[in-house]
């Protein structure tokens, strides 16, 4: 499995005694299982790649997974909680509880490098690096948003067709070079 990344994963529990090692591996097994849970609306990436798994905790026999929703009204939120629960039960880690944590709010900055690469390979332009979280930014009007590189041919000559797309998290763009439409994962 991949190593935990700074800022995304909770610190591993200290190793040493036999019990602590067992606990670490159980939590690691849970993280590994989460690697295989796809986002229901963007199945190219896992829920872990998306950065919506905030924590995995062990309570006695059970495992608690803490998720953060992407958008307030994202209809996938409940499906994701169910898939996560099922994946961990299937991995023999149950009983599993899934809880929600709102703060700090999810940002596309939490999508992992692997997740961005998978989005790109899937034909979705990944979100810009630093999310559009600029407190006090007055930009209320942005008829022509900055160009987004085409995920197919790499050209920067693209334009936005629609600010909103097939899911809450995406906008629709098109490439003026290769003429292909593509989706853009909006930075928030």
């Amino acid at each position, binding site marked *: 499995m991949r190593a935990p990344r700074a800022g995304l994963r909770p610190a591993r529990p200290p190793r040493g005694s036999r019990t602590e090692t067992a606990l670490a591996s159980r939590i690691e097994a849970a993280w590994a299982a989460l690697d295989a849970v796809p986002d229901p609306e963007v199945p190219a990436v896992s829920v872990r790649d998306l950065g919506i798994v905030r924590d995995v905790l062990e309570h006695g026999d059970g495992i608690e997974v803490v998720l953060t*929703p992407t*958008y*307030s*009204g*994202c*209809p996938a939120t409940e499906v994701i909680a169910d898939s996560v629960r099922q994946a961990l039960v299937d991995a023999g880690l149950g009983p599993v509880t899934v809880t929600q944590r*709102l*703060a*700090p*709010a*999810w*940002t596309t900055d939490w999508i992992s490098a692997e997740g961005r690469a998978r989005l790109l390979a899937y034909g979705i332009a990944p979100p810009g690096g630093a999310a*559009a*979280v600029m*407190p006090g930014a*007055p*930009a*209320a*009007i*942005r*008829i022509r948003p900055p160009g987004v590189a085409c995920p197919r041919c790499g050209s920067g000559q693209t334009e936005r*067709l*629609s*600010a*909103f*797309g*097939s899911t*809450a998290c995406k906008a*629709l763009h098109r490439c003026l070079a290769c003429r292909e439409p593509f989706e853009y994962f*909006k930075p*928030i």
Partner: protein
Amino acid sequence: MAPPTALLSLPAGAGTSSITLQLTPPLRYVLRIADTCLIHAQRLAEWCGHGPVLEEDIALTNMALDLLGQARSLLSHAGRLEGQGHDEDQLAFLRDERDYLNLTLVEQPMRRSSAHAPGGDFADTVLRNFLLATWLKTLWTRLAASSDEALAAIAGKAVKEARYHQQHAGDWVLRLGDGTEESAARLRAALDRAWPYTHEMFRRDAVDAAAEAAGLGPGRDALREAWLAEVAAVLAAAKLVLPADTPFLSTGTLGRHSEHMGFILAEMQSLQRQYPGGRW
């Protein structure tokens, strides 16, 4: 008509009777925001399948979905604040008209073909969405520092969504206001219709004073300066002049609504009233 039992499961003991809340000032404060999001979402969703262009159909319903999500979080929180075990569904569907505390502006008809209403123009939708997204963005920004941690968390997420809504609506204000003679005239008319209702967005009362004293959130009057600065800048770019203020003051946040509210609630609540506790 027989209930579609294959689609709906009905828990035993559920009733259709209305719930009544014990409204404390903090609960009123949260419900004013929750209900504004809820009813605004309901109006935007009326565009589903009727947008002037496909992209806008998708945009309006996407924004409705964000607002509905915000309303759900706030209503769940209001239920916890009340402490009587009411959940988001009961709060959304089983209150009577006078217990809804949304701004009157959001209940005004949006579409020309809205049932039971003469309705407006796409320009009304664009303009109202812009005025409200700017108001909500200003409010969420301040609420992110609320002494109520749950409210602060909801606001921290919602502010990102409101910012995107404001940009989108601002684009349209600019397009229509600085567009053709026809689009500019219709946007001006929409602005004149909406403007009198904006006073309620900044009308301070005892609920605001209590919220401010407790650190729960800003009084509505404190939002006006930031709101007006952003609204005026976009309207100026769209070559629109701010309308003159009028003495009219709407009272939805006090539970006294316009004639349109009952029709919205009838549509929103009919399923839960006919099939109590029904779930998809």
